[in-house]
């Protein structure tokens, strides 16, 4: 089955790496990218250019974003009854405990550190794919609102 994954990430390098990593493990992943928080919200709300955007099955969210950072995006997602059921996993270089605690408080589904080493990064993406996109039961697409 196809998986619509929204990657909210401002580093093009990381975007490409993510894409490559996913490609290696799961070719059924459709990776959508938003490079800042505003864009992410527009995509999720299907506003503007994103009117025809698909609803993501899964969101990978970096915290450090321009315009509107990932923390705010997370907060907005989880306050929105129609969006809050989408599993939103933080994927960030920040190891700050405060960020971890805060993210869970905002009801992030999970928090992951972006590994420094590429092989570890690949491994992580693999795990994400294995767990979230294969084993986990994601919420059904058809929803009210």
């Amino acid at each position, binding site marked *: 089955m196809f998986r619509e994954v929204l990657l909210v990430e401002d*580093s093009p390098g990381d975007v490409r790496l993510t894409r490559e990593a996913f490609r290696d493990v799961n070719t059924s992943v459709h990776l959508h990218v938003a490079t800042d928080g505003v864009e992410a919200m527009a995509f999720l709300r299907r506003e503007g250019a994103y009117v025809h955007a698909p609803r993501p099955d899964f969101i990978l969210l970096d915290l450090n974003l321009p315009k509107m950072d990932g923390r705010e995006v997370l907060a907005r997602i989880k306050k929105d009854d129609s969006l809050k059921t989408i599993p939103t996993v933080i994927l960030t270089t920040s190891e700050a405990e405060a960020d971890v605690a805060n993210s869970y408080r905002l009801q992030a589904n999970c928090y992951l550190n972006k590994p420094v080493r590429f092989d570890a990064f690949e491994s992580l993406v693999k795990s994400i794919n294995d767990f979230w996109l294969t084993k986990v039961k994601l919420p059904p697409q058809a929803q009210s609102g």
Partner: protein
Amino acid sequence: MRSNRIKMKARRSPPAAAIRDLSMPDATEKHLAQMESKYHGLLEAAPDAMVVVNQGGDIVLLNLQAEKQFGYRRDELLGQKVTNIIPEGFAERLIADDLRSAEDALAQQIGSGIELIGRRKDGGEFPIELMLSPLESAEGILVTAAIRDISARKTDEKHLAQMESKYRGLLEAAPDAMVVVNQSGDIVLLNLQAEKQFGYRRDELLGQKVTNIIPVGFAERLIADDLRSAEDASAQQIETGIELIGRRKDGDEFPIEIMLSPLESAEGTLVTAAIRNISVRKAAEMHLAQMQGKYRGLLEAAPDAMVVVSQGGDIVLLNLQAEKQFGYRRDELLGQKVTNIIPVGFAERLIADDLRSTEDALAQQIGTGIELTGLRKDGGEFPIEIMLSPLESAEGTLVTAAIRNISVRKAAEMHLAQMEGRYRGLLEAAPDAMVVVNQSGEIVLLNVQAEKQFGYRRDELLGQQVTNIIPVGFAERLIADDLRSAEDASAQQIGAGIELIACRKDGSEFPIELMLSPLRNSEGILVTAAIRDISVRKKAAVVLLQKVEELNRSNEELGQFAYLASHDLQEPLRMVASYTQLLSRRYKGKLDADADEFIAFAVDGASRMQRLIHDLLAYSRVGTKGKDLIETSSEDALQQALVNLRGAIEESGALVTHDPLPAVLADEMQLIQLFQNLIGNAIKYQSPGVPRVHISAARASGKKWNFSVKDNGLGIDPQYFERIFGMFQRLHKRDEFAGTGIGLAICKKIVERHGGRIWVESQPGEGSTFRFALAGR
């Protein structure tokens, strides 16, 4: 009887004519006439009225006194019945009756005075006393009656009787025993009290010798001797109480005091004795004497010299100590003026003057010690302290003086004064300002440093409140309150430096440190305060604080810098490393061999750089991300480290063992890191065979623990023992062992942050033991 009358007349001129009845025979008549004439002479000479009466009651003879007394002429009475002149009571006595003979009848009267009534010619009656005596004659027994007119006596007697009854009333009423004694020492009168006191019935004592009840001392006094009359004899005793011994009927003796007073009576001077039982008083006196004896004992036993002085200033009593102290024998001082031994200051105090009574005079001294000078027999003087107390006695108020030789104390006081002088010297020499304060907070002493420091002259501060120079924090400490005494109040401060603010004369303030110490003297507790100006120290402290803050800030900045640097460095590095890897992966073999090699170097370089930065970050985090040291289970930390090293352990097949490990004060994360690095190294730098690592801990001095991580690896050459703990120091080539060389530097930083030290014991080829010390609980 006319013939008799006539005969009587004739007899008047010639003496001693006997009364003759013409019917008598002549021979006896002659004898009788002789007798009669002798008798007749006596008769006439008698002072009393004399009448001779025959058994028929006829008057046969009478004398001139009788004529006078009764108012008759002789011839009017001769031959008449005696009842003419003594109507009753006489004639009857003459009658012999069946029960007794004439002699007997008379005999009962002989010698005793009989009181009757006489009747004169004019009919007037008067009391008489008769004294009868028999007279043998030819005519039979005649009775001679001496007749005494006892009118006066009777009046007296009546008066006396009246007096006596009145007196008797008084006598009976008297509280004391009263006994009236005549000059022969016979008890003529006594009262009920006397009966009770002596245990006799009245009739048992009346007429008895007073010596029965007062054996000695009374009767003698009644005797008039050549030197003095009865009056005189008793006069000498009148009014004064005489102490004698009384004797009861049962033989018991008891002390008495008698007060004598004369009593004139018909019988002569009687003596009334009021007899007071003074047993109680005597007992009291004995008790007092005992007391005095005891007091005397106390006096002797007293450690101090004791002297009892009368109000006249005479020494009435003294003890052995007094003798010793003043160098006199007792008899040399008794009765002497107290001024002999205490020339000045004592005797004056005894004097009551117009302004105050003795009690007051003394009262002012009672209880307080008065310092005076004592004078010995040898003339030597010595300082004394006297304590006075009053002593009531029969002689009036006496004063007991306890006299204490205070030579030693005086010497001590002088010594103390000298000491104070020396102390004063020390005070002046002290480098710090010194101020001595009394418990009221007044400055009693200060030194020149204090003058300088506070900008005052000495006299401007002496006597002033210390709050003038130290407004807050000092004076309060001096106050003894209910909870603590003065000693406690100052004791709490003794030794500890107290930081306060002091105030100069010009009003400027400066910080001081106060060191208090107590000083005892005769005035009580004083507090010596050493006052140190700590402005400089304070400033230095402020500077230090500032520097520390700066340091902290720069540390923080450094940490932030290190973090940001490495974090920001990480990202581009990640790109380089990741893409070169992707390149390598994607294009290996697809480009030429050079390209492969180039890419390989690039990948390697980037990876190393990543690791370096990662390690640098880890190193900087030891300081910046370090948490407070709390009690931590080192065993738990080890376990987590082993979990983290699971992969490496499994891969190498290493055997990791450990002893029970203690709780230590640590940052848990860092402790895990420490173990992880050391054990990781132990596994990494292995020699052939199974790597074995053993972790243990042993108690060290203080509360420290020495941990050991022992391996059987390659070992380290001693010359490198220091270097290996340096940053990025490696002993091996890159291709031999992976690693940036920062692991041990991180270990060192962690251990040092924990206040410990890390070192290694090793020999090449013999494994290594890394040891580090951490503080326990």
